[in-house]
């Protein structure tokens, strides 16, 4: 979970990415005020428009937006698969954009892992060889890298299939290989670009669970791109919503739903079922001495997860703070939950 005391692992300051021949000059002339329309007329496409944010250690930032909104481009800038047109990016405090090729390769070999939408496995290598690939590139000796890769195979539940080729695996299994490969070098930072979009819904759910389980164990710093709001809600500590390259809002899920910063975000979140996002805390009342029920509920719980038990109780419930020895912090009238669930 996010914690403000943690150091920031990824830090972006006014990052721009503009595609086109004279992007750099146009950007300098525009003095930081980039309008997609004028740039388009000049033959440039705005990929990322003035992105500033940071990601704390162990935090999971989910980047959301419609197709073409610049999510992948943002991720690519931070992994330096494309060069940002201007701005500053710091990884663990080191300036990414001034690194030379050698430093960049070192960074990728040790600190970064990435999972791709279409898996991007090497077709001529087996599962095991694919997973061991980053290690071998790094120069780890064969026995060690095979052992490590085997460990990864087990971690993602592919034991018994390590000698298969990617073409012999289902989509979900291939993505497990992709995940295992990205984790093989034990990176601190984990990038995932729509890792589950190419999978069908049932498998996707299963993979999300698997992913949450892994994150529970590994606690990486994560940037996760998706255009599926449900997925974002299930996974995110914070969500960034992008439109035309601009980060419209970057906040916790419930804040995004409750206090959308722009019209666009509002529209975007309109159809999201409130109970899936909101925590008890956001609808609770002050401490009420009349609270007669014995049931205590945590203020950090998502409403949906407790809805059934709340509705079964006719009385006003006590809300407690699990972090402070279950001290009572408020009360909750079931009627309010009904309103969230069925009212608009």
């Amino acid at each position, binding site marked *: 979970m996010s914690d403000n005391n943690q150091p920031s692992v990824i830090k972006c300051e006014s990052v721009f990415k503009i595609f086109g021949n004279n992007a750099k000059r146009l950007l300098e002339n525009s003095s930081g005020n980039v309008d997609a329309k004028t740039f388009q007329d000049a033959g440039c496409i705005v990929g990322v428009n003035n992105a500033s944010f940071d990601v704390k250690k162990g935090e999971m930032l989910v980047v959301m937006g419609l197709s073409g909104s610049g999510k992948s481009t943002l991720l*690519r800038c931070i*992994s330096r*698969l494309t060069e940002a047109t201007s701005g500053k990016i710091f990884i663990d405090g080191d300036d990414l954009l001034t690194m030379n*090729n050698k430093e960049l*390769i*070192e960074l*990728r*070999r*040790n600190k*970064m*892992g*990435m999972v*791709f*939408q*279409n*898996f*991007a*496995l*090497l*077709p*001529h*290598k*087996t599962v095991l*060889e694919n997973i061991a*690939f*980053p290690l071998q*590139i*790094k120069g780890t000796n064969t026995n060690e890298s095979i052992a490590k890769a085997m460990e990864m195979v087990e971690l993602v539940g592919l034991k018994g299939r390590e*000698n298969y*080729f990617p*073409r012999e695996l289902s989509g979900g299994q291939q993505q497990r290989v992709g995940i295992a*490969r*990205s984790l093989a*070098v034990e990176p601190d930072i984990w*990038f995932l670009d729509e890792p589950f979009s190419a999978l069908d819904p049932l498998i996707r759910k299963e993979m999300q669970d698997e992913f949450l389980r892994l994150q529970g164990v590994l606690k990486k710093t994560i940037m996760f791109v998706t255009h599926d709001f449900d997925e974002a809600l299930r996974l995110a500590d914070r969500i960034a919503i992008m439109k035309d390259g601009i980060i419209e809002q970057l906040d916790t899920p419930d804040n995004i739903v409750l206090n959308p910063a722009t019209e666009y975000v509002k529209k975007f979140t309109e159809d999201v079922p409130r109970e899936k996002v909101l925590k008890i805390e956001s609808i609770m009342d002050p401490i009420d001495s009349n609270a007669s029920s014995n049931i205590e509920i945590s203020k950090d719980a998502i409403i949906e997860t407790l809805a059934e038990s709340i509705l079964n109780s006719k009385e006003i419930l006590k809300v407690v703070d699990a972090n402070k020895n279950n001290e009572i912090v408020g009360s909750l009238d079931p009627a309010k939950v009904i309103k969230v669930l069925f009212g608009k």
Partner: protein
Amino acid sequence: MLNNFKKSKPQQFSFLILIFLFLYFIVPEDENSLLWRLPPLLKDIPAFINYLLDNLMFNWLTIPVYDPDWGMYEDQAIVRLITRSISDFLLFLIIFIREFFLGGMQTISSLTGDSLKGLKLAYLPAIPWTAVIMGLFILGYKLQGLSLALIASLGFFYVSVFGQWEPTMETLSLVLVTAPICFILGLFFGILGYLSKKVETTLQPILNVAQTMPHFSYLVPIIVFFGVGDHAGAVATIIFATPPMIRLTILGLRKISPEIVESGLMSGCNRFQLLFRVLIPTARRDILIGVNQVIMQCLAMTTIAAFIGAKGLGFNLKVALNGLKIGKAAEIGICVVIIAVVLDKLSLAWANKQKDYFANLSFFQRNKAFVYFLFLTLILGIIAYFSASYFEEGINFLYLIPFGKGLTIAPLLDAGVDWIWETFFYYLNIFNKFLITYVLFVMRDAYLGMPVVSTFFLIMGAGYIIGGIRSCLIVGGLILFIALSEYWNRALITAYMATFAVGISAINGIIVGSLCARNEISTKIILSICDFFQTFPSFIYLIPVILLFGITDTSVMIAAIAYASVPATRYTVEGLRSVPPSLHDAGSMSGVSNLQRWISIEFPLALPHIMLGLNQTVIFALMMIVLGALIGTEDLGQIIMGSLSRPGGAGIGFTLGIFVSFICLAVDNLIRTWTDERKKLLGIS
């Protein structure tokens, strides 16, 4: 009205043709009129090329070289020294591989000097032909399975039993030397082209010209640089067979999804690792398809390389054709076809073979096939050693069946030919005469009677309508180059033959293709027939037509039509099959007949692809027509052929080759521009 005209291409084309005809009839035939023929301002180009070559080889950049025979220093041109050492190197490789199959002592004596000459010890024994066939069996089995093993071994068994083993191995040794060189060069330039846009844009036009130039036209410059012999043949082959490898390498690498490249980068690959551990293995199949192309081109070219002294099947074929020994020629032709099919199937199987993973295998298990091969070779070698005394006349049939000592069907074939001649001569002759007098000559005269203004108006006008001012200028420029030479009339003859051949081939291809594309099974059948006909060298097509029509223009025409119908058919089938089925259904639902559907839906949608096929058809037809000069036509090809044996022929041969290439490129430009536009319009690009 005017607006309408600006939009309607058919109207523009009608207008164009009207003016063309008007000019055609209004301009009088007058050698001094610029409207009739342009002056040969560029007639000195061949001489200039000769001058360049001469100076390159003898005068420029000389360094003193010690000549042991004369015991003194002599000035020699660097270029010449370089080409000579390349020649020596190639020749050494060819002879080494040749002696591996056929035995001999040149390899060893070339290393040790003359002292060992005549020494029995220095004689390299050949690997017995039975062992080669076993090897092919094992290779075929390993690559694909029993069927391929049988095809490969039986094919070569036939070749050996029919006494063509020696020339076949000579040809094969050329292929085995040139194909790997083409592969390495192609891969190298392909990678460079992939890495740098600049290199690719420089390579592109060179590749275009190299691939559309008739094989013959660079034979002469090669003679100048490299002399005559197997090594010159090898050089010609390398020049001809490398371009497709470069193309397919670039294409294969470009096809790799960007995600794979990025996954490589994120794994921390440096450039080198990215290239050799990610990109090339991922593009493996396309690259190996390139190898297949290389092998086929090498085989095609080694037969033609006979004209500059390469030994092998091509040489024997040439001799047989020159002596009009049709039966013999056909026999050799069959062998060439067999070898082509076997090499094609083997290399395709290699390309399509997926790597198997076997963990922790022992050395023996890993190289089982090779160990078997060595073992069997040993046994067969021993058998061959002891069987030597068993056969009479000093011929050991289990070791090597000498040329012409095998079975032969030549008399049978000759008898067949005689029979055909006797039975059908009358009809064939009538057909032949009719075609020549009433079609070909009429057409030829029509082309020769075309004033140069009208030609240019037609070509550049078509360019303008199709691709705007850019195409107009490109096409005009390419043709102008020819018009300013001495050979415009010859080029017109070439053009008339090409028009005729392409016209008939296109009709053939479209009709046959359309009929066959109608169901799954016939599609498969026709595509494999096309594959089959495309595997063997163009040279081979000439044999049956000479058999039927003798040495006439008709023969060349028919060979060209047969050869050029293949791409026309293939592209028609592919184009029609790629029309989405939903459109068929839509057509069927609205109750149209098959023919209506074909006219109104399928054909227009498939047309862009069919036009690309036509592009190939033009190139194929021109290649065959130039080759046809071998049996006597009077177009550009004849002079190109003639230049082979003429002093100073290099300049002429090369220039005319460029002309033919320019005709191809002009057509290519028009067709490509049209199809690109059309595809965009139909939304199928």
